[in-house]
């Protein structure tokens, strides 16, 4: 086993919290009013919150809060759970670029992707008329090529955000400021919900 594989295996034991911290940071980033401005500094596409999110306690993962809502940012349960020490375990996001929308559920634990839906799904019917002359084999080839390109774009976008997160996370001073901002955002959101409910 080469050294880097050993180092990564060791990190998996000691730094398993990074995925959870990242998704929490990403959720709060996408919840901000000027979210798309910040998104455009990192990627060329549009990234918005989806409609599903699960939070959990890092040391008691069975303690979960699961929220399904068409507008996640309008759900005070998320902010209430974050304030009670939860972190985001999985989160749905939508990546939009050039008439394609990729919906995905990101998982903090293993970095896997589920419920991946590519709108304009490149199925046989949606292929342009000029492709009708293609053989079944060529249509499959075309479909696989387009789908894999979409997944590559999705992974590149997530990687770009993750690299930005790691950049912030590795600097104690910058992350301390970021944490203060995140706490303030959560408290502010909860106060807004409380004041609007009276």
């Amino acid at each position, binding site marked *: 086993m080469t050294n*880097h*594989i050993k*180092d*990564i295996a060791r*990190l*998996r034991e*000691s*730094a*398993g*919290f*990074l*995925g959870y*911290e*990242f998704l*929490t940071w990403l959720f709060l980033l996408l919840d901000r009013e000027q979210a798309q401005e910040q998104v455009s500094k990192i990627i060329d596409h549009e990234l918005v919150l989806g409609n599903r999110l699960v939070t959990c*306690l*890092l*040391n*008691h993962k069975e*303690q979960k809060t699961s929220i399904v809502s068409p507008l996640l940012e309008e759900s005070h349960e998320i902010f209430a759970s*974050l*304030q*009670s*020490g*939860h*972190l985001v375990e999985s989160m749905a996001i939508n990546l939009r670029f050039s008439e394609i929308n990729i919906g995905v559920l990101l*998982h*903090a634990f*293993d*970095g*896997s*992707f*589920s*419920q*991946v*839906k590519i709108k304009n*799904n490149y*199925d046989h019917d949606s292929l342009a008329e000029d492709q009708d002359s293609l053989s079944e*084999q060529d249509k*499959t*080839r075309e*479909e*696989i*090529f387009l*789908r*894999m390109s979409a*997944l590559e774009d999705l*992974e590149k976008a997530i*990687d770009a955000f*993750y*690299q930005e997160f*790691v*950049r912030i*996370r*590795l600097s104690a001073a910058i*992350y301390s400021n970021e*944490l203060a901002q*995140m*706490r303030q955002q*959560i408290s502010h959101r909860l106060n807004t919900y409380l004041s609007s409910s009276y």
Partner: protein
Amino acid sequence: MSVLSGTMAYQPFRITHELRLSPEQIIEKLRLFKFKPLHPQGLDNDTHGWVSYQSEYDHEQVISTADCYFDQKIILAMRMDSLLVPKQLLRALVKKSLAAYQRDQKKPPDRVVKKEIELAEAHSLRSRILPKTRIIEAVWCLSSQELRIFSRSSSQVEKFLELFQDTFLLKPERHDFIESSYYYAQKHADLASLELLSHQPVFLPSSRVDIQ
């Protein structure tokens, strides 16, 4: 879940080994670990191996480059068949046979006879059960050496990786947040900071944890 299904789920991996296999070499190796179905009279209850993409249920179909190779991408399809003998049914059948033996032989069966009856009933029941089939697909991008396994089940992914390693003698590495952090820190000569990181909660969890 498959490469072409409407909703996909997958786990990304990377092959970091320097060895690069050509599509023809890959197909040749796939053929060596081709799927072999369970024999109706056999003893095994599980089998797995490679099958031809889009002809997964025809195990006799030869795996060919034309079926699996699409623009620098190899589509791997692993078929897993498993037989599950219903224990309660088996128990009932054994009980019935033991009673028939006692009635015919006018004596209770001894331990050896009991074992033989159990084996015979298990064998007979096994031959009447159809195996449960699961197909796990993966896309291996030869230019970037990325491997996407279309399953989130840890046992299925483990089985796939095991077969992949046996077939190609290559061990794919999981491409997750930790791996990305490692390469980022390595690139920026900041591995020491990464290793010293500890969790910093946004808010501390409340001391009371409900245990139900």
